[in-house]
């Protein structure tokens, strides 16, 4: 059986990243939990993904052929040596859900994710400031239409409702004031092609279009500009709580969907309190909040309490099988796979973001999830699968059906399964008798049995959980 340290490390890597190969997992476990957390929250200790390799294979990375941009992101999820940096980018993408559907302008969406990658662990104040200056967001929520004397409230409202405080913590007047404060925050586009030309956009502050009248926002009065509004928001207890719930839902355990938060209490109020405390202790530094989160007991005790998002499932399967370690002709298939499972990266359905947890699962998406995982696990030559077969072979003596099953569950996760799944898999293993990969006559059949067992395990309900 797996040591608890190994299982806990695997849990941390599933949540703070996208899983790990067995080799990575053992190295991480040897590092020790607290030190590993420090490595994760300090991604700059490790090299970045070399995008020039990708560029050689995929061409212009900001191009618009198919879903290249989503494929590149999945590659990064699998290969980044800075897993938390990539995971925070996905987290903020969930929270600040911006869809490429409206703009048809992938370069801006790609740029936004790069920004999340860059500032994802910094202070919430800085993150919200970057968000407000982000051309993809400006366009998505119409802040380019937010003019002096003719405010458009879309961004001001969602900034409060979905990106920081949550409904019930501000008034309609605050929304109007926030909108006025962000007048003049727009973007420029070098070429005016339909819809905007595939050239990067950049933030522009138009002084002459900014409403510099006196505004009262959440009790503060003055000639408030956007950054003043963000300062005020970042200091609100409601903001700390709202972000804490988002973090809990994304990193710890599934919560109800965001619109329910104003009525449904948190699943673990003490955990939320601890994260709020960490937020204020650190001046809203996400790096510190994440350190507290990963080191907490509530996190360590939350194994398999979240349903994997499609991106987590796809990247996690690749960590297991060793696929996509190098730019891969199937890259677009991987992007299509998450889309078929209900998560088209860079294109969340609404500004509310994806509904998570159980809502990932319906007949169509479960079918896709199971078939993707089973399909990926069918190749005995893939490095991850081959490594598992080799490990089982190195055990020397033939394995009893129970040993065979336990070793496989360990090597896939370690994965904990319920009684029904265990019985079903054991029954299957027993039908083949002992597994002997070292007897020449049985090697090929034995490899087939291992493959089948891996396919069945990744098809299980338990495998859907992170």
């Amino acid at each position: 059986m797996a040591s608890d340290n190994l299982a806990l490390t695997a849990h941390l890597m599933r949540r703070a990243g996208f899983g790990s190969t067995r080799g990575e997992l053992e190295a991480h476990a040897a590092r020790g939990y607290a030190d590993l957390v420090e490595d994760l929250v300090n991604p700059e200790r490790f090299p970045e993904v070399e995008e020039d390799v990708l560029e050689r294979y995929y061409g212009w990375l900001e191009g618009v052929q198919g879903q290249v941009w989503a494929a590149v992101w999945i590659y990064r999820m699998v290969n980044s040596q800075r897993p938390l940096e990539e995971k925070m980018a996905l987290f903020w993408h969930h929270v600040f859900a911006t869809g490429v559907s409206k703009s048809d302008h992938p370069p801006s969406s790609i740029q936004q994710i790069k920004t999340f990658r860059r500032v994802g662990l910094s202070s919430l104040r800085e993150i919200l400031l970057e968000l407000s200056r982000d051309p993809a967001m400006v366009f998505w929520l119409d802040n380019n239409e937010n003019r002096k004397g003719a405010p458009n409230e879309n961004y001001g409202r969602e900034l409060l409702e979905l990106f920081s405080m949550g409904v019930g913590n501000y008034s309609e007047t605050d929304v109007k004031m926030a909108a006025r404060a962000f007048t003049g925050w727009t973007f420029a586009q070098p070429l005016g092609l339909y819809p905007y030309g595939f050239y990067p956009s950049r933030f522009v502050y138009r002084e002459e279009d900014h409403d510099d009248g006196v505004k009262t926002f959440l009790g503060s009065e003055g000639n408030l500009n956007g950054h003043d509004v963000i300062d005020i928001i970042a200091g609100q207890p409601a903001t700390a709580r709202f972000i804490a719930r988002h973090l809990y839902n994304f990193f710890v355990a599934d919560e109800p969907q965001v619109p329910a938060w104003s009525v449904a209490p948190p699943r673990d109020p003490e955990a939320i309190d601890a994260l709020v405390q960490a937020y204020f202790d650190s001046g809203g530094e996400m790096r510190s909040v994440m350190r507290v989160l990963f080191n907490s007991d509530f996190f360590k005790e939350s194994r398999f309490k979240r349903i994997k998002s499609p991106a987590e499932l796809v990247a996690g399967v690749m960590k297991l099988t060793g696929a996509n370690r190098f730019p891969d002709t199937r890259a677009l298939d991987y992007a299509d796979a998450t889309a078929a499972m209900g998560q088209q990266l860079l294109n969340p359905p609404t500004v509310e973001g994806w509904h998570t947890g159980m809502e990932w699962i319906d007949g169509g998406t479960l079918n896709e999830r199971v078939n993707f995982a089973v399909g990926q696990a069918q190749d005995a030559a893939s490095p991850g699968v081959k490594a598992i077969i080799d490990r089982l072979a190195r055990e020397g003596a033939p394995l009893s059906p129970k040993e065979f099953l336990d070793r496989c569950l360990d090597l896939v996760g370690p994965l904990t399964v319920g009684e029904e799944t265990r019985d079903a898999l054991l029954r299957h293993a027993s039908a083949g008798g002992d597994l002997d990969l070292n007897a020449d006559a049985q090697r090929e059949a034995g490899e087939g049995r291992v493959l089948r067992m891996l396919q069945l395990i990744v098809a299980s309900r338990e495998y859907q959980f992170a």
Partner: protein
Amino acid sequence: MKRKGKEPVLVVTQLSGGNDFMNTLVPYASGHYYDARPTVSIDAGEVLPINDALGFHPNAAPLKELYDLGKVAVVQGIGYPNSNRSHFRAMDIWHTCEPDKVGTEGWVARAVRELDPHGENVLACVSFGKGLPRAVAAPGVPVTSLGDLERYGVMTDVAEEERGEALDVFKRMYTPASTGPEPAMERLSQTGLDVLRGIDLLKTAPETYRSNVEYAANPIAKGLRDVARVHLADLGTRIFYTQHGGYDTHANELPTHQRLLGELSGAIMDFYQDLEEHGAGDNVAMLVFTEFGRRIRDNGSGTDHGSGGGAFIIGPGVKGGLYAEYPPLAPSRWLNGEDLRHSIDFRGVYSTMLEQWMGLDPVPIVGGAFEQIRPFS
């Protein structure tokens, strides 16, 4: 299996990418058309005329044939205000009936919820093609989504001879947990078992299917053949969804569009002949739509995203003919100086299908009361 009577069945066919309606039903008598389309037009001498103003694309002969038989209602100038030119967004709008805000529930799924309120038949709605179009997705509405009928189901990558055992293990693994209800686990169990039930039911479709109709080898022919096979297996499916891609003809439109219309109209003809051969077509109506029409002027090689396209309602129960109005072609009447004007809202066409064909109250499904046409009276 007992024949489930003649409940009306709807087949939705989505042309993805934005079909060029002007080159599908060509206004061959209009000088404005040829002025706007110096390169990407169909010669008047080649069209298949249906009257002295309009004619089908020459490669859509089977569709013209069905039209002549009175089985095709052409909905001219379909659209909605402030038509969106993004494929994703426009398709979302068609899928959710929400042009002004972002919707999450599909109109087909809402209809399925009315047809099968307790979700008793996992095959009440069957969608063919990769992924689940948002039109058929809504929380709590089971939809069966197939890439390929032969290979439908879970564990399809397991070798044939071992697949039975794999499915058996799958079923056991998804048995509801004995250790008390945990909602996420329960949802997974239920969904997994629903998928298996769907597989079991669908297995009969290819096994029992016999036909003299030979469909062509292209995606829409394959899709409609799958629809026919499932429909003929009498599994209680009320709405089918199928897709034909490639209509985004910005460049080199003429040969591409010709091929697509040939594939589409041939497949529709084969589909109805197949159903007719089995005496099973009378209760089937098809709605063919696309997310937007294309720009009036060509770009020298193809056409860019536009608005105001066309839709087709096809079937033995349809009263064929032209419905709504062909978009005005005089440049002074162009929408925003470059686009086709719509004369009927797409939600009115959905309402037509829902109310007059399926017998459902369309208002809650499409989000309001919209003017309908009368292609079934």
